[in-house]
């Protein structure tokens, strides 16, 4: 079994971090994992994307043109990558700033207004964690417990941010599952 998740958005939206947290969670759960960044000549404010491959055996090709799932944090990313997602995958959409859908009937589209949710929690910067939580709750690429553990691990050196991010995780999960 192998699943691939592509995260894409503007530089500054925390796209690379989302991928790293997911990769950490999958590694903690005992999976083989690779995190592959885009490192082309992009500049601040340009597009940023990364791919996480999670597998129960050593990962072969790190080059993934058709990921199983997509987390689109802005409109250009959705428009660029929506068509590449494998049928049946989850397409997560940052509904706060993306007014359109994936335009596909064969994927599981999940729209969450992550920025409003994060603002209500007190810090819009937590929007990426809301998104990651909603995506994981829907796709179940790792368990929610592993995700929570990895978020705490990632913020271990900035411990005062942990309560906010735990709240963000919970809010994201609720947005995706309705309870």
């Amino acid at each position, binding site marked *: 079994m192998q699943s691939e998740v592509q995260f894409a958005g503007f530089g500054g939206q925390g796209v690379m971090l989302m991928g*790293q947290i997911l*990769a*950490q969670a999958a*590694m903690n759960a005992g999976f*083989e*994992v*690779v*995190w*592959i*960044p885009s*490192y*082309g*000549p992009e500049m601040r404010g340009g597009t940023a994307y990364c791919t996480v491959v999670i597998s129960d055996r050593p*990962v*072969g*090709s*790190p*080059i993934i*043109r058709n990921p199983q799932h997509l987390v689109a944090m802005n409109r250009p990313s959705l428009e660029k990558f929506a068509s590449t997602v494998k049928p049946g995958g989850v397409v997560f959409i940052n509904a706060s700033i993306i007014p359109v859908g994936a335009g596909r009937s064969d994927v599981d589209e999940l729209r969450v207004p992550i920025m409003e949710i994060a603002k209500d929690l007190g810090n819009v910067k937590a929007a990426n964690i809301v998104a990651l939580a909603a995506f994981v709750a829907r796709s179940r690429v790792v368990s929610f417990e592993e995700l929570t553990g990895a978020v705490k691990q990632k913020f271990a050196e900035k411990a005062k941010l942990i309560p906010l991010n735990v709240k963000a995780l919970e809010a994201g999960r609720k947005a995706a599952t309705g309870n």
Partner: protein
Amino acid sequence: MGKVLMKGNEAIGEAAIRAGCLNYFAYPITPQSEVAEYLSKRLPEVGGVFLQGESEVAVSYMIFGASACGARVFTTSSSPGISLMSEGISYITAAQCPAVFINIMRGGPGLGGILPSQADYFQSVKGGGHGDYRLLVMAPASVQEAVEMTMTAFPLAEKYRNPVMILGDGLIGQMMEPVEFPDHLKSEPSNKDGWATNGMDTRRSSTRNLVRTLYLVPEELNAHNLKLKAKYDRMIREEIRWETYNLDGDYRMLIVSYGTMSRVCRTVIDNFKAKGIEIGMVRPKTLFPFPKQAIYDAAAKASCRAAISVEMSMGQMVEDVELSVKGLKPVHWYGKCGGDVPTPEEVMEEVSKLMAS
């Protein structure tokens, strides 16, 4: 310490420290600048020296100087930077100084691009600088292997008193994978009192050591080259490393591929297997010395109709594959440049075409 998730470039920096190397001189260049970033913070913490040179040319001579004084030392760069270092590398091989050079390749020629490439095969394996010299060249296919090869490189460089080159590509440097730093790969620097200019007060000797590369007497220079050749011959006897994949069955084609490209080829072989088609692979882990015999033996199997070298270059390693196969079977090449890493689908299409022809 258990497994940690690390970027290849940072893992390489940490591996060097774990291997007992506390001297790193470098000049930044994408896609490997994170090694310098990481070590600029880490080396002072462990009492090491991080120094940014004014250019790659300067760095190569800083490496030469430190090594001649008996220190464990290494640098990292990417393709254009390695070109600039090549003069120094030639001198270091001539002077028989151990050192480790790591090339996280990007696309060329010229400034080229910053994305992954394997176009420096010739430069590393056949000699980027002048004169008759060889580097021991290792090619990692994962972040874990980059760690292990880095840790192994230092004692190997000292065993041969010759630079070791680790040839990775942009993906090896940029991607994150779980890694561990095996304790058994830690090593003590060798005793260099017999040759290094490490100070006569420190080695309790009255013999003067001289590190040099100038031999104006033809017989002397010839003798010096024969001495170097004997070391390269010993590398061929003792250091060839490779891995095979799916060579047990009756494979119809043999893929030869290294580094990141070999991972793509592993997926290619798995996908073919799912369709009932067997393809085998030999993955060289050392590019010099090259696993000629292993490739010859794999190509010689009756079921194998041809070999194909798959590389992110316009066809460099394929020449060594041809030499290995010795005309026994046809040898083909497939590759792409510019950072556009061939996908499994693209390689499969090429292999299918060859099988149909």
